[in-house]
């Protein structure tokens, strides 16, 4: 939202009455769907911050006889007398609802941080490159090309294996920077390295997309006009180009969120992500694959949670895009 306060309407210079932010907000919340999406995402964030307040059981409470119990079934073990598995139980007899609630934490963190890192770095990089053109653009995009030509998965795995092997070395053999990395990782329960790995590769697409869009818009009359009236480069990028491309970028970024969530799940699956039994939506989906035909509910609920979250992000992205579109302001 910070960027939006700076961005004024594209070609029109004089527009004194309302601030853009107020304007955007007003139009954003006119739509009931948007209100619903914001509510849903807020609930997720609250749940992610303190899952133990909402989860009926711990994520590791195991009751083997209840394995793959269908939604609504009652627990059979004495300890859990009267307990009902609202969403059913997984292959080790753990409450899926509770695990879903705890899984929100990891998945939300990955989704927000992955998207945030990718968006910030990618959009800035792509905007500067696309606007500069010529030599700077060339150098910047060649750097992207090099990282790009490196298979993402290999890069992530190499990074992860390398970082986790650091964590296993005796503390005295590490230098200060390595120690910092390892500390951050243990403090975050193994999540930090996942962010590093995802962040390192995820901004590339965004940078290329932003550059492509910038290339397109900088040809347009309103940018040339701004040049003529003596606007600075920063002003042109921030006020004229960004508002035009940000919608496409937001939508593209939200579409990348499942990829981050699955990357985390994949990393967990090959032993490089969050250590079990701590759940994440991605790892719950991976777990549920085995029971796809015998107990589909195991995969259904985490997949549903993921879809709903994506949907919320996307409707919101669309709405923000529309609300910020300078050309639509008078309609």
């Amino acid at each position, binding site marked *: 939202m910070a960027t939006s306060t700076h961005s004024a309407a594209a070609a029109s210079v004089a527009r004194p009455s309302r601030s853009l932010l107020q304007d955007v907000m007003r139009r954003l919340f006119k739509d009931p769907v948007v209100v619903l999406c914001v509510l849903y995402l807020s609930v997720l964030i609250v749940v992610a911050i303190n899952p133990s307040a909402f989860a009926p059981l711990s994520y*590791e409470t*195991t009751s*083997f*006889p209840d*394995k*793959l119990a269908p939604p609504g079934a009652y627990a059979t073990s004495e300890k859990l007398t009267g307990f009902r598995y609202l969403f059913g139980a997984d*292959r*080790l*007899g753990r409450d899926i609802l509770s695990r879903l609630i705890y899984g929100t934490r990891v998945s939300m963190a990955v989704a927000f941080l992955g998207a945030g890192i990718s968006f910030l770095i990618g959009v800035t990089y792509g905007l500067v490159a696309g606007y500069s053109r010529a030599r700077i653009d060339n150098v910047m995009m060649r750097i992207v090309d090099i990282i790009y030509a490196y298979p993402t998965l290999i890069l992530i*795995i190499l990074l992860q*294996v390398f970082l*986790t*092997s650091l964590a*296993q070395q*005796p503390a005295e053999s590490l230098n200060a920077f390595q120690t910092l990395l390892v500390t951050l990782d243990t403090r975050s329960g193994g999540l930090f390295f996942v962010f590093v790995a995802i962040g390192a590769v995820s901004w590339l697409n965004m940078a290329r997309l932003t550059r492509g869009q910038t290339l397109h818009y900088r040809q347009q009359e309103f940018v040339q006009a701004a040049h003529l009236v003596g606007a600075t480069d920063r002003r042109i990028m921030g006020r004229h180009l960004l508002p035009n491309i940000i919608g496409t970028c937001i939508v593209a970024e939200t579409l990348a969120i499942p990829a981050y969530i699955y990357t985390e799940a994949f990393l*967990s*699956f*090959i*032993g*490089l992500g969050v*250590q*079990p*039994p701590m759940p994440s939506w991605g790892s719950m989906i*991976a*777990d549920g*694959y*085995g*029971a*796809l*035909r*015998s*107990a589909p509910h195991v995969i259904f609920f985490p997949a549903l949670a993921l879809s709903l979250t994506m949907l919320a992000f996307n409707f919101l992205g669309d709405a923000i895009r529309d609300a910020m579109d300078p050309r639509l302001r008078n309609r």
Partner: protein
Amino acid sequence: MRRNHLWYGLALLLVLLVLAACTAAPAAPGEANAPAAPATSGEALTLRLATVSEPSTLDPNLAEDYYSITPIEQMFLGLTNINNATSEIEPELAESWTVSDDGTVWTFNLRQDVKWSDGNPVTANDIVYSVRRAVMPETASPYAYVLYSIKNAAAINQTEIPTATYDIESLGVKALDDYTVEFTLESPAAYFESISSMWTLRPVPSWAIEQFGDAWTDPANIVVNGPYKLVEWRPGEKLIFEKNPDYFAADNVQIDRVELNIITDQFTEVALYEKGELDVAGEGAASLPAEEVARILADPVLSAEFHQGPRASTTYVGFTMTKPPFDNVLVRKAFSAAIDRETMVRDVVGSGVPATQFAPPGIFGAPDPEVGLGYDPEQAKAWLAEAGYPDGAGFPTVTYRYFSNSLEEALAQALQAMWKETLNVDVQLEAQEFPVFLASTAPDVPVEEMPEMWRLGWGADYPDENNWVYEVFHCTDSQNRPRAACTEADAKAKQAGIETDPEVRKALYAEVEQLMFGEEVRVAPYYHRGYTILTKPYLQRAYPTFAPVNWDTWRIEK
């Protein structure tokens, strides 16, 4: 004009498509060395099987994994064979064999009617060549160690090439004549009969290897002496075998053609089976997942075609015996007795047999009924209390390390939950990528970097206890991963391998199993893996516990 540009773009896509199709056409094998149209001849009986992984090699001297050994078994004959139905050693290339009185000289008399598929006779020299090749350090055979009981094999194999040299003539194998081969062993070894069935020392065609090098097992070059011959290998897709008309017992082989499809995903394999596109499912895989087994058992059709039983493989928890608190035998006992083996097998794995000892049923010398330590929660609590941690009080957080895959993850979490439930101790799980796991739990890792507990497993190389307690746990002659100090159990394990009387051997092994896993608790075996196989009703076959299957004994009766 502008519109043309758009069409130009579309055309470019089309060109790409055509290009891809073109590159695909020559890459698709099939036409080049396809056999004489077996698909069209209605008579040819085809068996459609699946394997989870591509064979890594078809060279008997180099093979080490199940996926490679299965096709090798069909193409290359052993001195002896393990009968699929009875698990007994039976003659194959060797018609008979004798052992010297001191048990160190083994003489095998070969059949004289066995030919290679290029017409050459199979002779004792082929065996000598094969054993020498397997042992020579330049070959770098990962399985050379199973031949270490042959005189000088270990010394030759561990020569530090290229700086040091060795004398291959000193290896304890020689051809007395074309059809008699003699092995001289380092010391008496009753289990050598089992070893003689192994793929590592099966005769290989020296002339083909010298001519084609590594490519000798390619379909165009391969020379075999068994019931089937590889005719086509499409990487990542399938291997196709056809009946070898030159096999000496070709008349007894019913199935003309076998397709070994590479199907990585077990659920896809079952789906293909249900659709009737495979005749067998689950054969070339680790056991099917518990969820899938449950579904099969609930299905009236599938459950009738489902077969399960023990496979010669054991999964167990390793303890670092030199690292506190697991240097205390009471702690090890408590952790072993806290594992609810029945639940593990029934609810978590879905197949297999609960284990309290190391060697599974079907292995010579494995005590029956099982000895060792089983699930006993009250006793486990008592032991932990006796060790100074009543109800887990004051017990440090310890680590269980394993490698990541779906089953291991479930097992690790189940173990963690069981230890928490019974002993009230916190065990931290540490999943690692497989090679990292191997490197970080290797026998030479400093004890401070070792986890307190970690995942271990063992599958039989040959069906004899020597391959289990002695080769895995002997305090000096094995890798001794738990880092145990030598006790009477080690001496007895060694003695049992040298003894020639089967009954004496069995008695010794029973003692060793009880000592190692019931008293000292070097590790906690908790289940023997099982096979879970679906077979169409028209296919008659055996389900071996240990040996690779023999397709030549299978019958299709439609």
